[in-house]
């Protein structure tokens, strides 16, 4: 079964890789690029929520750090590859430090402290982005140029796709490593994990750092795709997007996060189009609210989780039938 899944992944990846060469649609390319970027972001959130059981209300903070870092480097210095690489490095270092400190401060406490502190800190970063006008140009943000390498939409599409595949592969390995398995044990039963001899604080901080760094990279790609950044990258909407994508796709499954990102981004796009027909569709957040409630009510395990369960039930039934046959 695992092999069949891998084949499916490879087919999908190849399909997406050749797509820009056989089907020329600028809108679709840009939309898919957004999907890849948000898939990285949603996967990073899933490491916290789905794999370790940590709730964060301020994941936008890491996204925003990445988005602003690349913007500032490209604007204040030069839109060249060395500065791009420097921005990547600075994003990794900054997000790692912030997630490490936040994790260390709060993850030893009851779980809601992390949720609250991340919320407070992302608020702090939002204010910083608003007030530090000389660098951030306040609320309105600023446009910037990017290195030539990334200018072509098709090339950028491919870069984002490959990054997403690499992140997916890394996180899949990470979640099925001995350490990743302990994370899942923590999600299941913190106290028991502790009494098995694992010091849970270390594990939670590691999860927090990995998740934060990945989110930062997603944010970096995001503002590069727009060649523009403003304070919206630090808002609650971004965190809610990640939450929605992981929950709809299925928490604790990395593919779920990707599928969730695809669904939300496409739905977002279609609803914006429909807004031209009727104003009600402009209030797309209402629709997302409804989808969210329906998903939690009917698919609490998300799309991937529900599919897995159906499959499991089927194999179980088959086993039972086989047993009955043997018995008779």
């Amino acid at each position: 079964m695992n092999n069949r899944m891998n084949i499916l992944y490879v087919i999908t990846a190849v399909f997406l890789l050749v797509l820009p060469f056989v089907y020329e649609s600028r809108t679709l390319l840009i939309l898919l690029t957004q999907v890849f970027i948000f898939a990285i972001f949603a996967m990073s959130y899933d490491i916290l929520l789905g794999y370790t059981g940590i709730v964060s209300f301020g994941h936008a903070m890491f996204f925003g750090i990445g988005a602003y870092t690349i913007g500032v480097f490209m604007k204040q210095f030069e839109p060249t590859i060395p500065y791009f690489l420097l921005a990547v490095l600075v994003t990794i270092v900054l997000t790692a430090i912030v997630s490490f400190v936040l994790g260390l401060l709060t993850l030893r406490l009851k779980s809601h402290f992390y949720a609250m502190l991340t919320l407070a800190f992302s608020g702090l970063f939002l204010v910083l982005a608003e007030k530090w006008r000389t660098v951030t140009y306040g609320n309105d943000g600023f446009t910037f140029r990017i290195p030539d390498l990334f200018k072509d939409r098709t090339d950028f599409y491919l870069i984002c796709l490959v990054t997403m595949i690499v992140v997916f592969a890394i996180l899949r390995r990470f979640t099925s490593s001995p350490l990743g398995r302990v994370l899942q044990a923590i999600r299941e039963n913190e106290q028991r994990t502790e009494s098995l001899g694992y010091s849970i604080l270390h594990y939670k901080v590691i999860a927090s750092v990995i998740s934060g760094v990945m989110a930062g990279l997603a944010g970096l790609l995001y503002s590069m795709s727009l060649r523009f950044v403003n304070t919206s990258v630090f808002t609650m909407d971004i965190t809610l997007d990640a939450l929605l994508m992981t929950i709809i796709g299925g928490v604790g499954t990395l593919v779920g996060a990707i599928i969730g990102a695809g669904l939300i981004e496409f739905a977002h796009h279609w609803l914006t189009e429909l807004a031209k027909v009727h104003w009600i569709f402009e209030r797309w957040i209402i629709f997302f609210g409804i989808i969210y409630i329906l998903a939690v009510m009917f698919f609490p395990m998300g799309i991937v989780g529900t599919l897995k369960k159906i499959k499991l039930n089927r194999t179980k039934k088959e086993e039972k039938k086989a047993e009955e046959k043997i018995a008779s």
Partner: protein
Amino acid sequence: MEPIIETKGLSISFGGHTAVDGVNISVPKNHFKSIIGPNGAGKTTFFNLLSGQLLPTKGQIFFRNKEITKMSPTERTCLGLGRSFQITNVFPNLTVLENVRLAVQSQAGTRFQMLAHYKKYRIFEEKAAEWLELVLLDNKKEIVARNLAHGEKRKLEIAMLLALNTEVLLLDEPTAGMSVEEVPAILDVIRKIKRGNDRTILLIEHKMDMIMDLSDSVMVLFNGKLLADGTPNEIMKNEIVQSAYLGGLYDVNSVKA
């Protein structure tokens, strides 16, 4: 013989209620000690103090002559103090095999490996399967722990403790809730470990008759106090214990008087 576990005036109060009250014990290496006492006597609370789930309000705990009173449960497990829980405490959404594998992995000291695939450590799964075989759960490996029957969960709980391979085993009513047919098999497992003669075992049990032949010594807790501590025979003959177990005795002092 040099004690492996020692408590001095160990006490804990919840609000005004003192659940464990000035308990002094000293357990030699490779000793088998049973703890008995009526419901609410403080037996589980005493275990929680030894394993670090609770911190005492007074008193000290020593492990191999080293004070461990303030250590975390994690540190104590790594030192060699493992426990099982009276209220089943497993990972409900992981498979039976994975539950035990996590214990094996901890015992092997593979804690922060994040690059290799866990399947690479096949030996962990094999070890885990062996422990499951020992507690007669080897036909349930791939089942999610949540779907086990109550008695089976108890067996899983024991397998997880055994897999930790700690020098000291704290067993909190391991057979509670098991069907009558299952109990002898589990007692056999415990007997086997005892025969190995390289573990120190503390066992909480309600049913006195069941543990008398296993135990080197028995201690009786009553209202948080250590009522008696001696060989099984001494305890059987002890009048105070007899009356405590026969019921009607809720004030120890009145008997002494």
